């Protein structure tokens, strides 16, 4: 029996879905990765689902694959929409979860506790309209078009790189001095009033 599992379902395509209690997610994932006979050593994707029915909880979905056993597993965590949307990060198990969890945070506003660098990844970092894939988010955004254009034009296109990304690219010595200063201060661009 998988530790922390609440119930299991079989999806239409024959894949198994395991529902896990949020507070036991990390324990379950560690078990799934390290236990012989499970060996889910590859995290394919992390995503989230919000339903039209506001009463239903949000789901965070983890797609796991075992490259050695050639097996797939889906793990779901349900988060009540009324409570705090937070779940433990699995970055410590699969480093590939870094950007996947950032994307879920960007689009749904779900916080991943213990994530090393949780900031927006698709929208720019000064984006102030909310989380676009939530059901209460209007399709055209919350602000007027003029305000959206103003904020976009005032965003700093260089500010999307973190210090880590730049040092990985060995570009630290090549970027302009003022940009280095901004990045040292962690400055992400400002919106003028």
């Amino acid at each position, binding site marked *: 029996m998988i530790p922390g599992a609440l119930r299991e379902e079989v999806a239409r395509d024959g894949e198994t879905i395991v529902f896990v209690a949020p507070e036991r997610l990390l324990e379950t994932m560690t078990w799934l990765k390290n236990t012989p006979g499970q060996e889910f050593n590859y995290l394919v994707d992390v995503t989230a689902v919000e339903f039209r029915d506001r009463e239903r909880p949000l789901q965070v979905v983890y797609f796991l694959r075992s490259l050695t056993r050639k097996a797939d597993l889906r793990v779901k965590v349900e988060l009540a929409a009324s409570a705090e949307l937070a779940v433990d990060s699995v970055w410590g198990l699969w480093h590939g979860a870094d950007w996947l969890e950032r994307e879920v945070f960007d689009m749904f506003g779900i916080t991943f506790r213990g994530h090393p660098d949780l900031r927006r990844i698709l929208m720019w970092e000064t984006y102030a309209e909310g989380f676009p894939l939530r059901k209460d988010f*209007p399709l055209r955004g919350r602000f*007027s*078009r*003029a305000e*959206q254009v103003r904020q976009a*034009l*005032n965003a700093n*296109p260089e500010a999307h790189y973190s210090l880590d990304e730049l040092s990985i690219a060995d570009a630290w010595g090549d970027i302009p001095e003022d940009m280095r200063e901004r990045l040292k201060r962690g400055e992400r661009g400002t919106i003028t009033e």
Partner: protein
Amino acid sequence: MKRVVDGKEVSGQSPNYLLAKFQNLVDWAVNSSRANSLWPMPFGTACCAIEFMATAASRYDFARFGMERQAFSPRQADVLICAGRLPFKLAPVIRRIYDQMPQPKWVISMGACASTGGIFDNYAMVQGIDTIVPVDVYVPGCPPRPEGLLYGILLLHKKIKGESLFDAERRRDEQPLDEKGLRLSPAEIDEVSEPFGNSVHQFRSS
């Protein structure tokens, strides 16, 4: 030759006649040179860029119209061709590219998305790049066929040949952003970004 000046009939050429002839000659020479050696700066973001590549390749070959050299640096480019949809995240990028291009410069907005936002009437997409940079020629289509882009380029040639070096209004030197960082007033941006076509049936809240 008889002319009427201040109600009196006078003979002879206007004193401005030679100057006008000279200006026309200079304009003709300069505009022909500009129109027939346009260096495009491709800004390809989506499927329109595929058609743009087809236009540049051997079958359609816009090098026939003097666009042999594609400048992948804005500092050596004459015409910015925005091929594809433009998300808000790229708005400061295209504005910076436009600002880096030397005068004289022109912009072609290629395809429905670059011109109007197209089918992407959502939170992430600029509703027409004319809210970001001034546009000279809009090429409709989704994406436009290479013939469509070539027609747009020929229209731009026509526009360039109609310009005059001696008419300061026609060639505004800079179109800087105002203190809010916009090139149009907020009301104008809202107006050109309004839903049209099928997207009027979609409510802002849905």
